[in-house]
C-alpha cells in the first residue's frame, strides 16, 4: 500500500491519472441534510454528470490499483490501516493494491470529519463494507458478461475475478471499463465475519515504514516555496490583550522580516499576541526573545488553582443541575444499612502531543489554503471561511500526519492564527508553537471535583447512588451559549447495566465558570469520571465486605458484561494473588466500548511501590485489527498513568505554571512494565478503540494500592514513590 501524503480531490485524481472513463469509481452521495439511510452508492461519472459531490470514494484503475480517500485524521490510532483492511476484505484485493490519500476538509461531502469520540470505524464501517462489496459485485458482473456466464459461476479473489468451472481469470484492471458501465446493485450480501480473511488480522500497519525512516510528513515538516516561519508571543493570560509593543531589538535579528500584532480566537474570546516572522524558526525565536510587550490584563479574573478548586467544592454543597435520576435517592440513602461518602479531585491537564501545534497557511486575495496536523478539517474550514469572509470552496484544509492529537488538534485556534498572519504579510507562513506555548496556552482538560454518596442494603447491594460533578462544561464556552442545561457527560464512563441494577440514583453537575479554555482530552469526561465512579465502586464493595470483582459482577447482570468480567478474572489470576501483592480492578464504558483493567502492584525492597503488570480486556464489538487495538489500549494506559502520577497543569495569577517537560513530567520507559491486552470476540456493533482503554487504568491502580497498603487515594495526581 502506498500512502499519498498529498491531498487530491477525486476530480483531480481522475485528471492526473488521465483515467476519466477508464476507471471504476464508486462513492457515497448523501443528500444535503439527508438521513444516513438515504445515503446511496453512486458511480463517479454519474456524480460528475449530475454535479453531485461524492463522499468517501474508492477508485480502481486499469492497472488494478485501488485508490481510496480517508476522510479522518491519522494521529497514531491506525485509521490508515483499519480503513484499508475493511475495504480489502469485501473488495477482495490485497492491501498492497490499495493507495490511500488524505482527504481535504469538506463537511458537505464527508459529514463530520472531526476525528474524535473514537468514531472513525464505529461510525463508518458498515458503509465501507457495503461500498467495497458493491464494487466487487460490479467487477464480477462485468467478467460474467465477458465470458457469457452467470455471476454465480464466478467469484473474486486477490484482485481477480475467477470463473469457477474453467479457472479462467481476469484482473480488476481489465474489468473496470466494463464494470463502470454497469449500474451499482441495490443490495449486496456482506460476508459472514467467520469468513474474514483480512479483517480481524493483526496485519502490519502500512504507515509504519514511513515513521521509521523519517519520511512521514507531519504538519511541522510541511514546506512551501517562499515560506516564512513565525512564533507568537501571546498574552500568558487567556483573555489578555496587547497594550503596546517595542520591536526595535527584534528587527535587528538577522532573518526577522515582520513583527505584527495578532489574535487567537479561543471560544470567541480574542487573546492577543505579537508574531515574529523570519526566514527560519530559530531567527523568529530569537526575535521573540528580545521583543518587549506591555499587556492589558484588565477586566477578567486572574485565577489560581486553589481558588478554582475551592469554588468547585463550595458549589457541590449547593444544588446541582440534575441530569438523570431514578427512584428517590435521598429517601433510599437515608434508609440504607450502610452509608458512605467520598470526594474525588482530578487535575487540569495539557494534551502535550509530541508534535507541538503548528500550521502552514497561504492566504491570497481570494483564497486560503492551509496544511497542518488537524483533527477537525471541516470545522476549521468553516471557521476560516467565516473569519476571512471567503466562500467555503475557497478555503482548502489539508491534513498531514498528526504527531498526536488527543482532542487538542480538533480546535480551530491555531489554523486561524496562521491564516491571519499569512493574510497580513501576504506570504505563506508556518506558525510554530514552542513546547512552552503548546503546554501553557490551553485549551486544557478541565479539572473536576466529584462528590459520591452510596447506600448499601443488608445484602451488600447498592441501594442508592449519587454523583455530583463540579467543573467546567466544555460545551458552553462559546459566547451566548445556554448555560442553564445539564452537562450530559456526568455519567460518561459508567457501565450501562448499573442504571438497571441500582434502584435509586441521582446524577447532576454544577458547572464552574472560569476563563480557562477547556477541550476534549483523550476519553473526555470519562477520563476523570472513571476515576471517581470506579474508585467509589471499590469503596462500596469493600464496605459491603465483598470482593470488588464479585461486587461488580453482581450489579452487571447483562451477559456481555459477565463475559468480560469472567475473562478479566481468568487472565489476571485475580483469585490466585500472592502475598504482598495488591490487585485492583476497574471497568468503564465509553464510545460504546467496554474495557476492564486489573493492575497488580507490590513494594520493592526499598519500600517503593511498583506497578508489576496491567491486564486489559477490551470489548469493542465488531473490530478490525487486534494488534492496533492492543497498541491503543497500551498507549491509553501510559497516558492515564501520566495524568494519575506524573503531571498536572496548575494556574497562578491567571497563567499556567507548567510549561515544559522539566516541570510537566511525563511517564518514561522506566515507569511501566508489562501490559497484556485481550480483545473480546463477539458481533456486537463496533465500538471505539482509541480512547476507551484510558478511564479504567487510574482507578484500577489506586484500588490496587488500597488493596496492598490500605491507603485510599482520592486526589490526583499522586506520587507513586511516596505511597
Amino acid at each position, binding site marked *: 500500500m502506498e500512502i499519498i501524503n498529498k491531498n487530491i480531490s477525486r476530480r483531480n485524481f481522475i485528471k492526473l491519472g488521465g483515467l476519466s472513463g477508464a476507471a471504476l469509481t464508486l462513492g457515497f452521495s448523501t443528500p444535503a441534510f439527508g438521513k444516513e439511510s438515504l445515503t446511496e452508492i453512486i458511480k463517479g461519472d454519474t456524480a460528475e454528470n449530475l454535479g453531485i459531490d461524492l463522499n468517501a470514494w474508492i477508485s480502481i484503475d486499469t492497472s488494478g490499483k485501488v485508490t481510496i480517500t480517508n476522510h479522518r485524521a491519522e494521529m497514531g490510532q491506525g485509521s490508515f490501516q483499519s480503513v484499508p483492511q475493511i475495504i480489502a476484505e469485501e473488495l477482495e484485493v490485497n492491501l498492497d493494491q490499495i493507495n490511500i490519500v488524505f482527504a481535504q476538509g469538506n463537511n458537505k461531502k464527508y459529514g463530520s470529519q472531526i476525528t474524535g469520540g473514537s468514531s472513525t470505524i464505529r461510525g463508518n464501517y458498515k458503509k465501507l463494507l457495503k461500498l467495497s462489496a458493491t464494487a466487487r459485485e460490479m467487477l464480477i458482473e462485468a467478467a460474467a458478461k465477458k465470458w457469457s456466464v452467470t455471476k454465480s459461476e464466478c467469484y473474486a479473489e486477490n484482485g481477480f475475478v475467477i470463473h469457477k468451472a474453467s479457472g479462467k481469470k481476469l484482473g480488476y484492471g481489465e474489468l473496470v471499463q466494463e464494470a463502470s458501465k454497469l449500474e451499482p446493485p441495490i443490495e449486496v450480501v456482506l460476508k459472514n465475519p467467520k469468513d474474514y480473511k483480512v479483517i480481524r488480522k493483526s496485519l502490519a500497519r502500512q504507515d509504519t515504514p514511513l515513521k521509521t*525512516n523519517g519520511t512521514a510528513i507531519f504538519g511541522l515538516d510541511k514546506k512551501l516555496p517562499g515560506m516564512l516561519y513565525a512564533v507568537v508571543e501571546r498574552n500568558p493570560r487567556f483573555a489578555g490583550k496587547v497594550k503596546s509593543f517595542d520591536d526595535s531589538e527584534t528587527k535587528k535579528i538577522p532573518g526577522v522580516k515582520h513583527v505584527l500584532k495578532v489574535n487567537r480566537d479561543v471560544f470567541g474570546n480574542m487573546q492577543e499576541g505579537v508574531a515574529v516572522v523570519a526566514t527560519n524558526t530559530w531567527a523568529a525565536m530569537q526575535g521573540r526573545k528580545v521583543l518587549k510587550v506591555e499587556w492589558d490584563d484588565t477586566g477578567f479574573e486572574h485565577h489560581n488553582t486553589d481558588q478554582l478548586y475551592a469554588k468547585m467544592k463550595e458549589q457541590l454543597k449547593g444544588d446541582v443541575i440534575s441530569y438523570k435520576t431514578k427512584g428517590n435517592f435521598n429517601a433510599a440513602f437515608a434508609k440504607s444499612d450502610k452509608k458512605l461518602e467520598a470526594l474525588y479531585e482530578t487535575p487540569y491537564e495539557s494534551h502535550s502531543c*509530541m*508534535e507541538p501545534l503548528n500550521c502552514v497557511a497561504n492566504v491570497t486575495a481570494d483564497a486560503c489554503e492551509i496544511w497542518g496536523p488537524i483533527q477537525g478539517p471541516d470545522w476549521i474550514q468553516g471557521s476560516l471561511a467565516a473569519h476571512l469572509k471567503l466562500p467555503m470552496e475557497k478555503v482548502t484544509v489539508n491534513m498531514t500526519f498528526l504527531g498526536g492529537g488527543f482532542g487538542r488538534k480538533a480546535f480551530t485556534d491555531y489554523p486561524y492564527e496562521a491564516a491571519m498572519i499569512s493574510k497580513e504579510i501576504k506570504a505563506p507562513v508556518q506558525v510554530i508553537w514552542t513546547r512552552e506555548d503548546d503546554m501553557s496556552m490551553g485549551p486544557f482538560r478541565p479539572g473536576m471535583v466529584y462528590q459520591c454518596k452510596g447506600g448499601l442494603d443488608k445484602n451488600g447491594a447498592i441501594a442508592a447512588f449519587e454523583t455530583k460533578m463540579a467543573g467546567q462544561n466544555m460545551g458552553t464556552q462559546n459566547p451566548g451559549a445556554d448555560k442553564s442545561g445539564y452537562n450530559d457527560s456526568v455519567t460518561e464512563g459508567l457501565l450501562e447495566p448499573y442504571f438497571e441494577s441500582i434502584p435509586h440514583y441521582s446524577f447532576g453537575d454544577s458547572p464552574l465558570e472560569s476563563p480557562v479554555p477547556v477541550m476534549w482530552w483523550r476519553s473526555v469526561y470519562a477520563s476523570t469520571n472513571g476515576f471517581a465512579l470506579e474508585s467509589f465502586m471499590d469503596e462500596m464493595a469493600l464496605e459491603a465486605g465483598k470482593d470488588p470483582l464479585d461486587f461488580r459482577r453482581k450489579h452487571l447482570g447483562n451477559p456481555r458484561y459477565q463475559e468480560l468480567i469472567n475473562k478479566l478474572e481468568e487472565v489476571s489470576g485475580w483469585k490466585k494473588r500472592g502475598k504482598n501483592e495488591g490487585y485492583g480492578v476497574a471497568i468503564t464504558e465509553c464510545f460504546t466500548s467496554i474495557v476492564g483493567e486489573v493492575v497488580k502492584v507490590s513494594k520493592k525492597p526499598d519500600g517503593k511501590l511498583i506497578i508489576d503488570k496491567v491486564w486489559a480486556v477490551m470489548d469493542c464489538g465488531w473490530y478490525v485489527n487486534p494488534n492496533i487495538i492492543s497498541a491503543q489500549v497500551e498507549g491509553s494506559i501510559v497516558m492515564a498513568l501520566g495524568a494519575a502520577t506524573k503531571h498536572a497543569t496548575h494556574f497562578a495569577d491567571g497563567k499556567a505554571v507548567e510549561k515544559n517537560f522539566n516541570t510537566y513530567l511525563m511517564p518514561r520507559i522506566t515507569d511501566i512494565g508489562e501490559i497484556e491486552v485481550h480483545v473480546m470476540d463477539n458481533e456486537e456493533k463496533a465500538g471505539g478503540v482509541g480512547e476507551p482503554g484510558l478511564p479504567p487504568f487510574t482507578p484500577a491502580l489506586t484500588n490496587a494500592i488500597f488493596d496492598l497498603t490500605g491507603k485510599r487515594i482520592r486526589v490526583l495526581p499522586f506520587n507513586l514513590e511516596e505511597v
Partner: protein
Amino acid sequence: MASLTLKINSKNYTVNTDPKMPLLWAIRDIVGLTGTKYGCGIAQCGACTVHLEGTPVRSCSLPVSAAANKNITTIEGLSVDNSHPVQLAWIQEQVPQCGYCQSGQIMAATALLKRNANPTDKDIDAAMQGHICRCGTYPRIRKAIKTASQLMASTK
C-alpha cells in the same frame, strides 16, 4: 553569521547561519531534512536525537557551530529502505503510533546497540529514559530493542 560545513549522512552542506543556532533548526530549516523532530527545545524529550561522531546528541541544544565538520547521522542516514536492524525491529514489533518521537527513539536505540550488542532491561532503561513517547509505545520499544539485538546477532 558564519559559513559552516555540515557533514550530514556522508554529504557536505554549506550553511550560512548564526553559529548559535541549534543544530536541529539548521538540519530542518536550512538543510531541509525533516525526519529529526522538535519536541521541547530543552533536551528533555529526545525527539531531536541525532548521532554526532556516532554518539547520540540532543540537536535542539547543541549549537550548529559545535557540529561543524563532524560526522552527523540523522534518521534519514540510517537507511532509506528501512533495512537497518533497528528499523526492521521497529516494524516487526509495530512500535510507532503517531510516529513523531520515533526518529529520536530509533537513533538512541541504534547508539545503544552499537556500544552494547546485548542490552539488559536496565541498560535499556538507562539509554531510553530520556525519550518521551506520548502515545505510550514504551513496552514495544523495549521489545523492539531486544528484537534488533537478535537480528544483529543473527546477521553477523
